[in-house]
C-alpha cells in the first residue's frame, strides 16, 4: 500500500521556481499496475524519485506500507529502498564491470543475505526474467532487452512491495518493448505492485490504471484504455486523493502559496484529484497571503 498525501516539490533554477510536484496525492493498493503518463517536464520523474525515496518531498506525507518516510535517516531510507522498492530504469543502469548475476546479487548483499541463499534467489530471479543462461555475461555483451530483463531481475530479487519502472521501454525497439511490458504484466499477475512512468501513451495504455501528470499536478485517467489488466482498477483501485486534511498541517507553506491560482488550476484541470474541501481550505488560508508568502520564502531559503 502506497500513499502520497499533498506532496509538494519545488526546484529552483536561478531565481525562478519550478513546481515539479504541486499538491500530489494518490494511493496505490497492493497488486496494482499503475501507469503515470505525462510529457517531459511534467514532474513524472520527480514523482518517481519521491515514490522511490531517492528524493524527499518539500512537504506532504508519504506512507510506504503504512510507514511514513518523512523522518527517516539516510541509512533508514537506503534500507527501505533496498527492502521495499525495486527500480527499473530507462537506461537499465546495470554496473558495467560486474556480471549480470553479480548485478542481480548486489541488493541482496546490501541486505546482508547469506551467500547460499543469495545464489538461490539470484537464480530464481534470473529464471523469472528468462536469463538463466546469461548470469555470467557482462551487461555490454547482451542485448538491450536482455539488459532490461536483468535490471528487472535485480528489481524483483528482493521481493519488494513496489517495482518502479521509469520509461522501461524507452531505450528499446517496440518489439523488445512489448516483451518487457509482457514481463511486467507477468510479474504483476504474480502479485507485484508496479508503477510505470512513461511519456508514451501506448505503453501507458497497457497498464491497469492510468494517472496523468501535467505541470506537477496529478489527475486520474481511470482504468487503462485497452484494459490489458483490469486488476488494478477493479480490486485495489487507485484514487486521486482529496481527503480534507487541514492544508496547513500537511504543508506549512501551502496556505500562503497563492490559493486563488491553485483554485483556478483545479477547476481548469477538471477538478481531478483535488477535492473541493481541500481547495476551499486553501482559499481560506489565502486571506493573509502576503504574510504567509514571506514566511514561505524564508522557509524555502532555509531548505536551500
Amino acid at each position, binding site marked *: 500500500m502506497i500513499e502520497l498525501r499533498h506532496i509538494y516539490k519545488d526546484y529552483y533554477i536561478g531565481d525562478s521556481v519550478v513546481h515539479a510536484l504541486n499538491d500530489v496525492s494518490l494511493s496505490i493498493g497492493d497488486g496494482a499496475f499503475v501507469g503515470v503518463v505525462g510529457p517531459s517536464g511534467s514532474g513524472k520523474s520527480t514523482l518517481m*524519485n519521491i515514490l*522511490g525515496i*531517492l*528524493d524527499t518531498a518539500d512537504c506532504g506525507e508519504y506512507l510506504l506500507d503504512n510507514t511514513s518516510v518523512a523522518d527517516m535517516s*539516510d*541509512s533508514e531510507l*537506503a*534500507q527501505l*529502498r*533496498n*527492502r521495499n522498492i525495486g*527500480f527499473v*530504469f530507462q537506461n537499465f*543502469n*546495470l*554496473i558495467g*564491470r*560486474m556480471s549480470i548475476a553479480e548485478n542481480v546479487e*548486489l*541488493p541482496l*548483499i*546490501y*541486505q*546482508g543475505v547469506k551467500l547460499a541463499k543469495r545464489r538461490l534467489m539470484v537464480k530464481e530471479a534470473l529464471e523469472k526474467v528468462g536469463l538463466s543462461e546469461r548470469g555470467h555475461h557482462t551487461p555490454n555483451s547482451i542485448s538491450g532487452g536482455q539488459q532490461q530483463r536483468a535490471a528487472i531481475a*535485480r528489481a524483483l530479487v*528482493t521481493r519488494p512491495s513496489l517495482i518502479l519502472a521509469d520509461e522501461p521501454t524507452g531505450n528499446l525497439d517496440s518489439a523488445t518493448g512489448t516483451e518487457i511490458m509482457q514481463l511486467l504484466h507477468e510479474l504483476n499477475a504474480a502479485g507485484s505492485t508496479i508503477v510505470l512512468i512513461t511519456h508514451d501513451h501506448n505503453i501507458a495504455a497497457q497498464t491497469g490504471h492510468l494517472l496523468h501528470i501535467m505541470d506537477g499536478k496529478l489527475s486520474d485517467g481511470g482504468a487503462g484504455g485497452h484494459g490489458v489488466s483490469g486488476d488494478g482498477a477493479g480490486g485495489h483501485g487507485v484514487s486521486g486523493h482529496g481527503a480534507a486534511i487541514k492544508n496547513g498541517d500537511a504543508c506549512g507553506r501551502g496556505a500562503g502559496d497563492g490559493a486563488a491560482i491553485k483554485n483556478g488550476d483545479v477547476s481548469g484541470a477538471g477538478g481531478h484529484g483535488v477535492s473541493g474541501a481541500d481547495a476551499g481550505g486553501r482559499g481560506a488560508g489565502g486571506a493573509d497571503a502576503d504574510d504567509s508568502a514571506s514566511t514561505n520564502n524564508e522557509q524555502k531559503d532555509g531548505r536551500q
Partner: protein
Amino acid sequence: MILQSIKMALKSILASKMRSFLTMLGIIIGVMALVVLVSLVTSATSSVASSISSMGNDLFTVSIRDDGGEPIALDELDKLIASENLAQAAPQFLSSASVRKGTSSIRVNVIGTTNAYFNIMNNKLAAGRLISLPDVKNGTHVAVLSNEAAAELFENVVINDIIGRTFRTDDMLYTVIGVLEKSDSVTAIGQQSYAIYVPFSLSLRLAGSAAVTNFYATAIDNNSIDAAEIDLNLALLQRFNGNTDAYYVQSMRTLSETLSSVQDTFALLLGGIAAISLLVGGIGIMNIMLVSVTERTREIGIRKAIGATRSSIMAQFLLEALVICLIGCAIGVAASAIVVLVVNLVSIYGSAAASSGSVTFSMPYSLSGTVVLASVIFSTLIGVVFGLYPAGKAARMQPIQALRYE
C-alpha cells in the same frame, strides 16, 4: 559485509590493472625507500656499534699531545690508574713494517704494548703465550700475531707449528710466541687486520722514542665508568700540572653513544625523506580515488538506489584505497628484500675479491623488522587518511544527482 567490501575493492582494483599499478607505484617506491635506506643504515652502523661495544664501554683511550718536556714513562701508568675505579692500563705504540715473505713483502702494523693490552681488548690466545713482563723489560725480539697476520705470513701452517718460527722485517728478526684468535673488534678502531704485537720497549727503541704517547685504561666495572673517567682526568691533570691541553681522554661509552645517536639521526633523516615520498604516493592515491569516484558517480547512484547506505559506500571506497596501499606496501617490502639481498651479494662478492681469502657467507645487511612494521602501519594510515576524503565524497552523493550523471 566487510569481506564483501574487500571483494568488491579487489574487483574494482583488478578491473583497471594498469591504473591500479601506477597508483600503487607511489606507495611501492615510498616503502622501498623507507625500508631499504633505513635497513642499510641500521645494519651498517649497528655492526660498527656492536664491535665497539664488544670492546667494552668501560674503555678509555688517552693520547698525550704535549708532555711539556716531561714524557710519561711506562712505569708511571700504574700511578695514573691508582684510583679504585680504574682497573688496568696498557700503552700502545703504533708503527708499521714490511715482512719479507719469499720474494714479496707484506705490510704489517706493529703494535708495541704490554700484557694488559690483550686483556683490555678481549683478545684470546689461539696458541702460544702472550707478551710477558720480562719481554717488556728486556725488549726481547718476540711477537704475538693476530690470526689474520699468522694466516698471511705462514700460509698453510698449522697454528701450533707457527709458534717458535721466525720472520724478518726490514731491520729485525722476530720469534713468534703466540697467535691470537680471530677477533672483529680490531678492525673497528681502524687498525689493519695484519697486526703483530711486540713488547712495548722494543717498539719504542726501534722508533727512537722513550715516552708513552697513547694508552688504554679500563674502569673496574660498567657502574663506575663516570667515576673512573673523573679519576683518570684528575690523575692526568695532576701529572701535567694543570695543563688540560696536554692530554685527551676519550671514553668508549661516549663514542658508542655518539655513534648510536648518529645512527638514529641518520635513520630518522632517511626515514623522513622516505616518508615524504610515501606521503606523495598517498596524495597520488587520493587523486586517483577522486577521479574514480567521479567516474563511478552513476555506479554510486545505482548502488544507492538499490539500497547501499552511506556507510557501505564509504566502506567500499575506503577499503579500495586501503587495499591499494597495502598491496603496494607488500610489493614494496618484497622488492626491498630483493634489493637488500642484492646489496649483500655485491658486498660479499666485493670483499671476497678484495681479500681473496676465506670468505664467510654472513649477510652484512638485513631487513629491519621495525621499519617493515613501520611501513605497514604508515601505509595503512596513508590509505585511511587519503582515502577518507574521496570515500566521504562518494558517500555524500545524492542518489538522484548521481543517477542523472552522464
